[in-house]
């Protein structure tokens, strides 16, 4: 068996071991997440697998890359949440401004009518 095949077999066996221990519902969630992750990070993963199989990086380092990518995804999620909050705050401020204008308009109208009533 060649070096590449041996490394690939080892990797698949290790992933299989991790998945074996999971309950079915969790396994489905992991597989869905994993598929999404694979699609989004295809290029990086291909390169990392290539480096690992060529013996340029160790298994530990390959796992390190996956974990740093996960940390990076967490940062990006926080970033997107933050930018959504900025948009939400802008919308809220616009609504408040509109309401304030309506209130001032309403107060003006109220005063005008009261004055009119008093004059009568």
């Amino acid at each position, binding site marked *: 068996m060649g070096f590449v095949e041996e490394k690939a077999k080892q990797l698949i066996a290790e992933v299989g071991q991790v998945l074996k221990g999971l309950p079915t519902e969790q396994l489905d969630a992991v597989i869905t997440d994993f598929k999404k992750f694979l699609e989004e990070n295809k290029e990086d993963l291909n390169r990392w697998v290539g480096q690992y199989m060529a013996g340029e990086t160790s298994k530990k380092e390959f796992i390190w890359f996956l974990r740093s990518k996960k940390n990076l995804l967490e940062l990006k999620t926080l970033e997107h949440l933050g930018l959504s909050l900025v948009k939400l*705050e802008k919308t809220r401020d616009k609504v408040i401004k509109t309401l304030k204008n309506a209130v001032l308009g309403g107060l003006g109208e109220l005063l005008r009518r009261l004055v009119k009533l008093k004059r009568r």
Partner: protein
Amino acid sequence: MKHIKFRLAIAAVPVLVAAAVMVFQCGPYIARFDVGFLEFMVNLKARALTLVEKAIEPYEPHREECEEMIKDLDRGFRNAVQKTANHLTIKQWEILSNPRGYLLGGFLEKWKQEGQLHAVFIGESKTIIAAAFDSLIRLENGKPR
């Protein structure tokens, strides 16, 4: 008289609505943009990437630089903590600087533990760490002015 009362009640509706909105308006959702903090991050990113490249050499001669970088990461975290409604940025700094994590803090710790790292590992880590800083910078830059 009934007619007047009805009109008064109608006119008072916006007042009540506004009062309710003002009661429920709980300040900013997110911290304000800080140009000084943004400059700090951009500067730190450049220094961090230069330092990461040096991991091809033994850790010891670069110990001081690494410790200075860790202090700067802590400075960044403390700066973020001081601001109101800044929990997302605080969390980002935590992830970036965590020595048990897999970004800059973890990289520096790994260099310290292993003494020296190799070019392929450094190259891949540098790309990810740069992207991590970019994420922090984009969020700061997108905050309300």
